[in-house]
């Protein structure tokens, strides 16, 4: 296990390194020189050199990555070209917002999907089963921006019970914070819940059909206990994969929701930076989001073995 973890860890680091070098190459790939854009065409060579030096631009990707890593060690991720603010400080404001959004959505999605899926699998063909399957299907077919638009229209414009958009920090107004959280979280959670529901339902079906469940049932095990103790564990394997991948991706994938609901999170931060060619911001956030993804994948891999040790044997043989 330790050997396996170490091997995967090294590989993850390698992947991250490759992505980091790619991220540091973006100024060379996008048209337009940031120094010229900022200083104007009549800028002198000295001005351009000073500018490139200040924002860690100009050098080759490897040197730039080295500078970036050096800054990282000192808690300094560079300076935004546009706002001249420290990227570290801006990330400290943005990252928690997106993290909260993603984690709360995940929790809500699981709270919806788990009981419904298990209950539905327990009584296949029941009303709950059929309704949940159809709903999941419809939700899966509806892109986030369509679902979000419908939710805003319904709850903010027609019913006027929730704010359409905006973000209130928790420290400022806890209640306002929660009301502003409801619609974006719902938009994300419903789609995720549909994915989990279908995955769980399909697997639970298979597991519940297996002989050891039938045996346990024949021994008089209570349904609830049976579901949780025997069925959930094996069925949770694909769920862990999905949740892990989703978490990794969600950090960079909240852009649509953040745009619709005016949430000052990572997605809007990076997309604005891309629009403004704010390379220090693009690079730092890309690497951080990639790190999140790589870590999530690594944790999924490791947790597989913890949940179901048989996988280690299968993988080895």
């Amino acid at each position: 296990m330790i050997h396996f973890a170490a091997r995967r860890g090294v590989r993850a680091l390698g992947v991250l390194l490759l992505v980091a070098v790619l991220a540091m190459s973006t100024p060379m790939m996008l048209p337009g020189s940031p120094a010229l854009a900022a200083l104007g065409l009549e800028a002198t060579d000295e001005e351009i050199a000073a500018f490139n030096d200040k924002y860690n631009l100009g050098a080759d990707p490897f040197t730039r990555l080295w500078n970036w890593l050096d800054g990282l060690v000192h808690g300094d991720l560079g300076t935004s070209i546009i706002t001249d603010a420290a990227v570290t400080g801006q990330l400290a404001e943005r990252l928690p917002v997106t993290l909260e959004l993603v984690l709360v959505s995940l929790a809500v999605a699981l709270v919806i999907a788990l009981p419904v899926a298990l209950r539905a699998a327990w009584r296949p063909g029941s009303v709950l089963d059929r309704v949940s399957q159809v709903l999941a299907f419809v939700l899966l077919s509806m892109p986030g921006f369509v679902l979000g638009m419908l939710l805003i229209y319904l709850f903010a414009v027609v019913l006027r019970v929730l704010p359409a958009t905006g973000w209130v920090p928790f420290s400022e107004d806890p209640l306002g914070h929660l009301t502003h959280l409801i619609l974006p979280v719902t938009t994300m959670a419903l789609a995720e819940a549909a994915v989990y529901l279908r995955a769980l339902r399909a697997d639970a079906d298979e597991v519940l059909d297996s002989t050891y469940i039938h045996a346990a049932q024949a021994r008089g095990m209570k349904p609830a206990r049976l579901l949780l103790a025997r069925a959930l564990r094996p069925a949770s394997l694909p769920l862990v994969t999905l949740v892990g991948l989703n978490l990794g991706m969600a950090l960079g994938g909240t852009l649509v929701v953040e745009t619709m609901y005016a949430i000052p999170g990572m997605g809007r931060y990076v997309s604005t930076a891309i629009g403004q060619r704010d390379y220090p911001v693009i690079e730092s956030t890309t690497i951080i989001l990639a790190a999140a993804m790589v870590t999530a994948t690594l944790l999924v891999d490791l947790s597989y073995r913890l949940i179901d040790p048989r996988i280690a044997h299968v993988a080895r043989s």
Partner: protein
Amino acid sequence: MSLAAEAGRDVHAAVRATRRRRRLDTAATTVAAGWLIVLAVLTLVSIATPLLDPYFQDFTSAKLEPSLAHPFGTDGNGRDVFARTVAGAQNSLVVAVITLVVGAVGGTLIGVAAGYFRGALDNVIGFLIDAVLAIPALLLIITIVSFRGPSITSIGTTIGLLMIPAFARVTRSIALTVRERDYVKAAVLIDTPTPRILVKAVLPAVAPALVSYAFTAMTAAIVAEGSLSFLGYGLAAPAPSWGGIIAEGRADLATAPWITLAPALALAATVMAITTIGERAKERYS
């Protein structure tokens, strides 16, 4: 009540449930296929005849309510929303097909190569796939689109490139098992040329999984293209795409909801239809 009797009742219930599900499945598949055929016919009409012109603007009739002349009303530029929705289908589907071709061909080549040859090649490919998966997808697309400019091909190939890892993973696992089959081992032993083995033995084994995954990939591509257009990184105006039309009409949601609702429903219905048919395909092949 004896165990046997209970089991018997369960069996009956299961059989009934299965039959009912089959009937529902058939009905759903028919509806789904019907929708896609209607869409295809309308698209042909839009391409072949001047009846459905998504570009013609009547500056004096902007934001008209749905009527006989304009079944889905008109947009802010006085264009027919029905014609634009149909043309949007065409663009969305073309993007989806390009995505599919790039993703499936690239993914299969890479996946089969990794699975069949294994060893160092497999490791390198696995590593690269991990790297692609680690980059935030939407941000990568936005970067590439702002670099290359928004066009059907640039958007389609970019989404397609991002789908290569998924296709590669699906095909690799199958290629791995095929490699171990006796007839493949035998073919290797008698020095059958590798390309021949790949074409005759590996590809047919990979095909069913490819086909079922293709449907999922297609819906993902349609949604991705829609999201991009919605965020303003999609096809350049005035080219109609579902996400773009929805974004254009969003400001008028309260006063002229038809501009947004028609393409939104069409998008959702198409994704549902493709998913439904994809699930049937999956059942059939597995």
